[in-house]
């Protein structure tokens, strides 16, 4: 199992100003698996996710202790290039956030930013990414249309396609389906299961059924602590910690 570890988090402590948001979290995230993070609102699961691509850097006054290694490299060392890191670790946000540009330009945004100018190559990448995100058939005739005209579910899959277009190895998803209707949610979940063949996926959700349906491993956070982390099956059938059991059976949160 240790051979396939993609992300290793050791004794992570995280502060917003003086408020401790994460308390001594350690976790091994496996390659080509789906890891779900669950817990009540404000438990630190989204903060943890944003630690993995250093998105928290954008918030002033944050502080981090402990180690986060991806492929054995410390992503918080002084020599880490944040931009390179984020190319490798893609992210899909809770609220779909396409740019106010055309569908094509949205997907091509990342590759262009990384220096790909060749039109044919861009077209290829865009088509491939949209196909992987299972939205190609719906948009192939209107690539020049504004992305803002798509439905919510389509926008979210477009954002997934945009993340795929830079060819990441890891995809972080922050409640990617929380704002969507059940049909769109089903589509996204289906898509996530397909994507794990090529990518390592970490998904934050407060929908336990969703975690149970899509993930291989599940971590339960409470008040900034990682209470329990193991096989999804095990967590949902025989949780070791009573707090996990309380949450899963709906006694709080």
């Amino acid at each position, binding site marked *: 199992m240790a051979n396939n570890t993609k992300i290793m988090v050791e004794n992570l402590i995280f502060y917003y100003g003086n408020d401790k948001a994460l308390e001594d979290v350690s976790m091994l995230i496996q390659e080509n698996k789906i890891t779900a993070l669950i817990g009540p609102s404000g438990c630190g699961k989204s903060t943890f996710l944003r630690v993995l691509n250093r998105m928290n850097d954008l918030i002033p006054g944050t502080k981090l202790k402990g180690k986060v290694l991806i492929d054995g490299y410390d992503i918080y060392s002084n020599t880490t290039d944040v931009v390179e890191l984020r190319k490798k670790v893609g992210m899909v946000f809770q609220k779909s956030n396409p*740019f106010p540009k055309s569908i094509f330009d949205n997907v091509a945004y990342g590759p262009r930013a990384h220096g790909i100018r060749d039109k044919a190559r861009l077209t290829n990448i865009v088509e491939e990414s949209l196909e992987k995100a299972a939205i190609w058939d719906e948009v192939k005739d209107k690539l020049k249309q504004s992305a*803002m005209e798509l439905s919510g579910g389509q926008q979210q899959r477009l954002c997934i396609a945009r993340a795929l277009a830079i060819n990441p190895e890891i995809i972080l998803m922050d409640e990617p389906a929380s704002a969507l209707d059940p049909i769109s949610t089903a589509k996204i979940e289906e898509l996530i299961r397909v994507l794990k063949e090529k990518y390592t996926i970490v998904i934050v959700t407060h929908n336990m059924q969703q975690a149970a349906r899509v993930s291989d491993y599940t971590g339960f956070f409470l008040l900034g602590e990682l209470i329990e982390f193991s096989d999804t099956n095990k967590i949902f059938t025989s949780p070791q910690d009573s707090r996990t059991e309380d949450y899963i059976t709906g006694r709080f949160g």
Partner: protein
Amino acid sequence: MISRKGKDLLIQNLFLFFASISILVLFLIMAFLFKEGLPIIEVVSPLRFLFGKSWYPTYEPPEFGILPLIMGSVAVTLGAITIAIPLGVATAIYLSEVANLRVKELLKPVIELLAGVPSVVYGFFGLVVVAPWIQDLFDLPTGLTALTASIMLGIMASPTVISISEDALSSVPISYREASLALGTTKWHTAISVTVPAALSGICTACILGMARAIEETMTVLMVAGGAAIIPTTLLQPVRPMTANIIAEMGEAVHGSEHFHALFAIAVVLFFITLALNLLADYISHRFKETGSATL
């Protein structure tokens, strides 16, 4: 004794009246400008007035061509926005995208503060500091030139450009920036390819209002532009913008004379130029709001 409902309605209508006063005043301004300005067309045709190349209001016979005055305004305004737009927009981007919170919270009030410096103070500074400096630098007979006025107006218009551009940039949703940065782009790339385009209409509004600020400025140009009613060929010549001309001559124009009417007619022209700029700015920012962020 009127009912409570009646009283509330009465109060509402009273407030409506007060709210309408702005419009009323705007119409009154137009009415009085026209009343005093229109009689000039009995002396000179509107086209000759606008495009006549000589302004000799007190000659016998007088000539009322305001083209030199218009060109004077155009020259100093173009000069001013050449300075104010690049500097102002760059500063706005710095404040909104680069500067940390502490620097931003310090500089924003400073810039708001500087927007309030009286124009006569800028004019005085231009007169005693900038003009002699320009005169020495270019070895001119006088330092009071279109360039001097442009520099002062550029400085004066910058706070307008900065404030409005910065507001536009700051109101771009943070999610756009996050999406771009999460794709592994630099802050600069994100600013240029996402944030600035998304705020473009606001930035355009800022530039137009900055331009309006320059074209309507009076005391500064009166003091440092030199005051020669000629069509300038270079920025190193003295000019007499419309605003300066009105102030400079109104004191000596006999009330009710042709000259007096001509000065009001210049004010009419000025009023419509700034009205057009303000409507344009309003249109751009409003259009953007209505179509949302769907177009870019």
